[in-house]
C-alpha cells in the first residue's frame, strides 16, 4: 500500500497570481524515504502543508495513509508527524518540557515510545533542563525530530530539517533518518542540498511548483544523457567564458574548484582542448566525471 498518494495537487497564492504548486503528482510507498529536492521557493513547503492538512489545496487531491487530506484531516493529524521548516517548539520551555508537552498533546507518554526516539534523545539528554531557545541549531533539530516522533507516527513529514545546520550534524541527522526507516516509518523529507538527495530511496526534483523527475538517485544520475567533464585552469574566469562561447557546449557552469561541462555528441576531450588552445588557454586540466544530482538538476532545468 502507498503511504502517500498525491494526484495533480495545485496551490495558488494571491488570487491565482502565483502558482506555488502546479499539478504535482507522486506516490510514496510504506517505509520509503522520499525526498523533495529543489531550491528555495520551489513549492516544497506548500506541498508539506497541504499533506499535513494545514493548508487547503486549490486543485487535485492527496491521501495520507489512505485518508483524504481535506475530508479526513482530523484523523491524519492523529497519525502523522510534522516538523516545519522553521524551528517551531516553545523556546521558553526546556527540552524535557517540550517533549512531555507534545507527548501529552498526542495522548501518549515519553516512556511509551522511548525506544523510537532513544538514539536521538540520548544525544540531547545531558541538556534536558536547558530551554529550547538556547540550543544550537543541530540540537534544536534533534529535539524537533524527537517531538515529531513521540507519538510513533505512520508518516513523518520533515520540511528542510537540515537547513541552517552544520555539516557534521547534518550527516548525523540523515543517519537517524535511515535508522527510523528501519522501524518502517514512511519519511517524506525536503531539502535544498543536492548532496543529501543521494541518501533518499527516491527523489522528486522540483522547481517552480512543477516536478521535473521522480526516480531513485542512482537512476537520476544514470539517466544523465551526456558525458560530463570537469575542467580546471588558471585563471578560471577565462576558462568559464571560453567554454560558454564554444558552439558545441551543451551545459557549462562553475562547480566547486572545477567547472562542469557537457558537449554535443562527437565532441571529445581533444576537440575541446584544441579549441581552448586557440583561445589562448593552454594549461587545462580536463577529465571525465560522474554526474551528481546537482548536475542532473541543472540539466533538467535547461531542457
Amino acid at each position, binding site marked *: 500500500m502507498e503511504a502517500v498518494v498525491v494526484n495533480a495537487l495545485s496551490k495558488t497564492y494571491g488570487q491565482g497570481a502565483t502558482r506555488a504548486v502546479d499539478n504535482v503528482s507522486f506516490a510514496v510507498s510504506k517505509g520509503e524515504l522520499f525526498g523533495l529536492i529543489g531550491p528555495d521557493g520551489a513549492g516544497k513547503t506548500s506541498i508539506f502543508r497541504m499533506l499535513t492538512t*494545514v493548508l487547503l489545496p486549490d486543485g487535485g487531491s492527496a491521501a495520507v495513509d489512505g485518508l483524504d487530506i481535506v475530508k479526513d484531516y482530523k484523523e491524519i493529524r*492523529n497519525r502523522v508527524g510534522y516538523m*516545519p521548516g522553521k524551528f*517551531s517548539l*516553545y523556546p521558553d520551555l526546556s527540552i524535557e518540557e517540550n517533549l512531555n*508537552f507534545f507527548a*501529552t*498533546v498526542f*495522548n501518549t507518554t515519553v516512556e511509551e515510545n522511548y525506544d523510537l526516539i532513544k538514539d536521538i534523545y540520548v544525544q540531547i539528554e545531558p541538556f534536558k533542563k536547558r530551554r529550547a531557545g538556547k540550543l544550537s541549531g543541530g540540537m534544536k533539530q534533534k529535539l524537533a525530530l524527537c517531538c515529531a516522533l513521540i507519538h510513533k507516527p505512520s508518516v513523518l513529514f520533515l520540511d528542510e530539517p537540515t537547513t541552517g545546520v552544520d555539516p557534521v550534524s547534518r550527516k548525523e541527522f540523515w543517519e537517524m533518518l535511515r535508522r527510523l526507516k528501519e522501524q518502517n516509518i514512511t519519511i517524506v523529507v525536503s531539502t535544498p542540498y543536492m548532496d543529501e538527495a543521494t541518501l533518499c530511496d527516491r527523489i522528486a526534483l522540483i522547481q517552480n511548483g512543477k516536478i521535473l523527475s521522480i526516480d531513485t538517485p542512482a537512476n537520476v544520475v544514470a539517466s544523465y544523457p551526456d558525458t560530463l567533464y570537469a575542467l580546471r585552469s588558471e585563471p578560471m574566469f577565462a576558462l568559464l567564458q571560453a567554454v560558454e562561447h564554444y558552439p558545441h557546449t551543451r551545459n557549462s557552469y562553475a562547480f566547486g574548484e572545477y567547472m562542469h561541462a557537457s558537449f554535443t555528441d562527437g565532441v571529445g576531450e581533444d576537440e575541446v582542448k584544441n579549441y581552448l588552445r586557440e583561445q589562448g588557454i593552454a594549461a587545462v586540466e580536463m577529465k571525465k566525471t560522474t554526474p551528481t544530482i546537482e548536475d542532473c538538476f541543472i540539466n533538467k532545468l535547461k531542457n
Partner: protein
Amino acid sequence: MKQFLTFVRKEFAHVLRDRKTLLILFGMPVVQILIFGFALTSEVKNSRVLIVDNANDAASQQLLTKIEASQYFEVDRSVMSPLQMEAAFREGEIKMAIVFPANFNEDLLHQNQAHVQIVTDASDPNTATSLTNYVSSIIQDYQASLNQTLSVPLRILPETRFIYNPQLKGVYNYVPGVMALVLMLVCVMMTAVSIVREKETGTMEVLLVSPFKPVLVILSKAVPYLILSLVNVGTILLMSIFVLDLPVAGNLLLLLAESTLFIITCLTLGIFISIKTSSQQVAMLISLMGMLLPTMLFSGFMFPIENMPVPLQIISNIVPSKWYYLIVKAVMIKGLGFSAIWKETLILAGMTLFLFVISLKNFKIRLA
C-alpha cells in the same frame, strides 16, 4: 483532562518565565492605585482664592494676612456680591471663596465665637478637600495664637461648603475605576498576544497537526491569567482597604465573584483579538488603543456618562468595564447586594458567552 492540565502548565510556564510580562502584570495595579491615589492628590499650590471680607476689621485682616502668606493660595480681595461669586466659580476663575460676616471681630470678642464661610469648587474633589484642609488649619493656627493670652478661649467656626459635588464622590470613584481599568488592560493585553504568539513563532503549525481541540487551547490560555488577575484584584482591594482607607462596604465574596466574571469577559475578549490578528504587535496595539481609551472614556470613571451626547451613551453600553464599574461601585461603596446588580451581571455574562462562541467559531483549524 490530562491534556488540559498539561496545556495549562505550559501556559503558566510561558507567563512565569517572561519577567517583563510579570512585571507589567503585577506592577501595573500597584502603580495605578498609587498614581491615582496619591500622585494626583498631591499638594495643590497657587490656587486662586476669592476673599469676600464684609467685616474688614482687625481680626479679619490678621487672618487674611496669614492666608495670603501661604504658598497654596493666590488671594484676590475684590469685593463681590454672592451672585458674582457664583459666576466666578462657574467660569472656573476661582477654586475657593472665603466669606467673612459683617461683624467678625465683634462676634469673636463678645460672643467668644465667630463664623467664617469656606466655599469650595468640588468638581475636582481632591483639590477641594486639600484646599479646605489648608484653610482650616490656618484658621486653627490663628485661633491658637489668639488664645495664648486669653483666659476665655475664642473660637472661629469655619463653615465649609462644597459646591457642585457635595458628597465628594471622586475620592471613591477611582478605586472601582482603577479596578476596571487595570483588569481590562492586563487581561485583554496578555491574552491578546498569547495565541497570536504561537502563530508567529510557528508552534501553532505544529499544534494544528496534532489531535488537540481549539476549545482546549482557548481555555488553557485563559486559566493562568484568570488566577493571576484574581491575585491582582486581591492586591487592589488590600491597598484600598489599608492604604487608602476605603473598606468594602458590601459582600466581599460577591465582589470577588463579580470580578471573576469580569476577568473572564476580558480574557475572552483578548482571546478573540488574538484569534483575529496575525502579529503580536497588532494584537498589542488593538488591545491598548481599543481597550484603554474606551475604558477611560466610557466606563464613567473619569467622565460621567450622563453628560455625554446620546450616541456616545449608546456606545458606552458595549464597553464591558462600564458594567463592571457600576457593579463595583454598588457592592464596594454603596454596600448593595446582588439584587441591585443582577442586570449588569447578566449583561457581562452575555458578553462573555458571545465572545467565547465567536472566538471558537473563528479559531482557524488551518493556516490562513
